[in-house]
């Protein structure tokens, strides 16, 4: 495992994209904190940017990276290496480098300007989101053989989680506004890791205006403590589940 992981990480490091991503995050977070006179306000602006950019970069970069490693994978599969090792090494390499990029780019500025429980929650959630979207990218790329199609699927998934999902939630809310759908909405929000991440951070920030509908219901239903624990668990499941599915698929894949 360690050996293969080493090659994956060296390969990602040679690819400058992760470095550029780190710098981009760094510029954004420093700008945001310097623009706002109040660090809490800065956190909110940063949150909204992070929730869009992190999933986008993680899912697209990982998908393309896996397609570009097809030779590497093919070479290793004929060697005395477990398939599981190959796949998990690629996952760990991607997840750790993108998480590190997030930590340096957004985490360190957050710690500098807003060293609080909220800041730390934000960093942890950002890292979790990075890992989740790497896992989703792995699943998308193992299921489609065609590169263009795979990248298309990745973009659509991102669109779905960032934009379309919210639209659907609003649509359901308006359609069923006469019925008590609160509890149902809690279940629905668990279907989107980005939504869940937003709720998790805002619960911690305690700015109820920003909670949105699902957030308000969440807080009401669980109280702060439980809301945070449960959304944390669901987020972890969002990373573990796609990874497990993709691993199962990869173990039986023809190369």
């Amino acid at each position, binding site marked *: 495992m360690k*050996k*293969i992981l080493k*090659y994956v990480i060296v*390969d990602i490091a*040679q690819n400058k994209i992760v470095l550029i991503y780190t710098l981009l995050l760094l510029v954004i977070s420093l700008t945001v904190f310097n623009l706002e006179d109040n660090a809490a306000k800065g956190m909110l602006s940063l949150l909204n940017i992070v929730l869009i950019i992190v999933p986008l970069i993680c899912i697209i970069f990982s998908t393309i990276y896996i397609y570009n*490693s*097809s*030779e*590497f994978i*093919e*070479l*290793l*599969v*004929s*060697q*005395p*290496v*477990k*398939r599981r090792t190959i796949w998990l090494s690629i996952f760990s390499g991607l997840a750790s480098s993108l998480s590190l990029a997030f930590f340096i780019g957004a985490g360190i500025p957050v710690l500098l300007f807003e060293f609080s429980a909220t800041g730390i929650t934000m960093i942890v959630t950002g890292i979790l989101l990075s890992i989740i979207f790497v896992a989703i990218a792995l699943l998308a790329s193992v299921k489609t053989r065609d590169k263009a199609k795979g990248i298309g699927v990745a973009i659509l998934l991102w669109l779905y989680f960032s934009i379309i999902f919210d639209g659907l939630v609003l649509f359901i809310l308006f359609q069923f506004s006469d019925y008590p759908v609160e509890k149902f909405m809690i279940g629905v929000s668990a279907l989107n890791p980005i939504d869940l991440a937003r709720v998790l951070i805002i619960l911690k920030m305690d700015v109820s205006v920003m909670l949105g509908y699902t957030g308000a219901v969440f807080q009401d239903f669980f109280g702060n403590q439980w809301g945070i624990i449960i959304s944390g668990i669901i987020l972890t499941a969002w990373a573990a589940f796609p990874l497990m599915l993709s691993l199962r698929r990869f*173990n*039986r*894949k*023809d*190369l």
Partner: protein
Amino acid sequence: MINTKNITKKFGKLTALDNVSVTFSKGECIALLGPNGCGKTTLIKTLLGMVVPDSGSIYFNNELIAGKWMYRSRIGYMPQIGRYPENMTIANVIDMMKDIRKESNEKPDEELVNAFGLKNLMQKKMRTLSGGTTQKVSAALAFMFHPDVLILDEPTAGLDPLLSEKLKQKIIREKENGKLILITSHILSELDNLVTEVFYMQEGKLLFHKKLSALKEETGEIKLSKAIAKIMTAQELV
């Protein structure tokens, strides 16, 4: 040494392997023959676990290989079209394979690296290599770790006559060391003084499996190419 029992593999509607049962034993040099698209490469890839058969089982030294991986340390594989990470140099690839495969204190066999003159090309990136040079790298890697089984898929395709002769001599030496060698090739004349057994496949089925001597006797031909041609025409008449 390698047995397969009734393996079947379908790619969509195409049946690449249809109930194939074969036995490859130690010390033999086996030619896998058949027209294009008859399933030779698929058979090889199932032996390596790169393709997972839909049904049937494969044994390596009487052990089921499904889900196993250690057995591959005893196989050297030279693919038909070697695909390597494009950003790596030849030296990177060779070092990586050594890193992954070195187990004992045995020195890697670099005879082919030297014979093919790869030493001067070590710093070249894989994506800049010609097809022939890529083949040289594949061949050198297949022989490097003293495998008991050598699986060579079209080994001489793309190599110039001088190098393919060097490769042939190397194969003969390994055969004399008692290793199992599996070769697929379209150039039958090259196989004449190499192989001891012939497997002939057609449309995913195993048509026959014979010793080379028996085959020559049956057809009354001295050359493998003629013997095969005779059998194929006889088939068509039926």
